[in-house]
């Protein structure tokens, strides 16, 4: 049995199938409605998860303030409140949350990784960001970015996930 959505939003069913047209139209309407609802629901859950990750990341970066000198047993310096504050500001503006790690060279590292081995990192220093991309074929890309250039950073992450960096 076939039915076609016509421009006025109703369903068109060929004449020989019209005995069931009402039931078919109702079924298809229900499918359309369900699919639209589940898409909205999925977007909603994705948004909630991103927000939870954002808060968890903010707390993680805040906790770096508790790392004292020599926290890595190799004389690493404590993180400055200024770097932590700038990193949190950046996190709050990011559309997709990264995994975050401190380094022993006074920087905080954001990492994104895909199943195919594509890897993107932003190393946040006091005075700027070093972006580094690499894949399993040794293709690499590096850029220096301003710490407040969140628009550019979000664009790079989006391009990374859409396969536009490779």
């Amino acid at each position: 049995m076939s039915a076609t959505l016509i421009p006025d939003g109703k369903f068109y069913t060929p004449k020989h199938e019209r005995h069931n047209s009402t039931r078919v139209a109702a079924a298809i309407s229900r499918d359309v409605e369900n699919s639209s609802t589940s898409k909205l629901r999925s977007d909603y859950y994705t948004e909630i998860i991103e927000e939870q990750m954002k808060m968890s990341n903010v707390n993680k970066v805040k906790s770096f303030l508790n790392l004292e000198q020599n926290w890595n047993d190799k004389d690493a310096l404590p993180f400055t409140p200024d770097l932590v504050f700038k990193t949190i500001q950046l996190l709050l503006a990011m559309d997709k949350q990264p995994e975050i790690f401190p380094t022993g060279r006074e920087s905080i590292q954001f990492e994104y990784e895909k199943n195919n081995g594509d890897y993107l990192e932003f190393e946040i220093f006091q005075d700027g960001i070093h972006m580094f991309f690499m894949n399993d074929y040794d293709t690499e890309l590096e850029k220096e970015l301003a710490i407040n250039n969140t628009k550019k950073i979000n664009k790079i992450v989006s391009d990374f996930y859409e396969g536009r960096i490779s």
Partner: protein
Amino acid sequence: MKDEFRKDERLYRNVIMDPNFWKKDSGGPSSAIFKDSNGVSVDRDGGREEADITSGFISRFGVENIRVIVSVNAGYCMEIGAHLVYSPVETNKYHAEIHDSPDKVPLHPKKARKLAKNCRVVYANEEDEK
């Protein structure tokens, strides 16, 4: 122990418990463990058994401070252009460092990433798995 490193020599690194350097998405260490202004500290194998090497780490750092111990091959470090420096200290005659090059200490992100992807876990703290 000789200053020169054999290609088949293994180098061991402690991945501390806190902060956490273990990645949720890929289940490996972050390359951040290989980013250090003062050089990446490792222990040379010095002809020891792996069990003795991990025991050495545990007695020096305390089991509660170790999440994982990883090892990398010295030959692999050389292959990616990293520079190995034997630098024994009073408390540890096996201590060595991985530098970016003879002229630069901090590793380039590419070298740090390659080491993170190619290291092997030789010890995992059971407390962390609970």
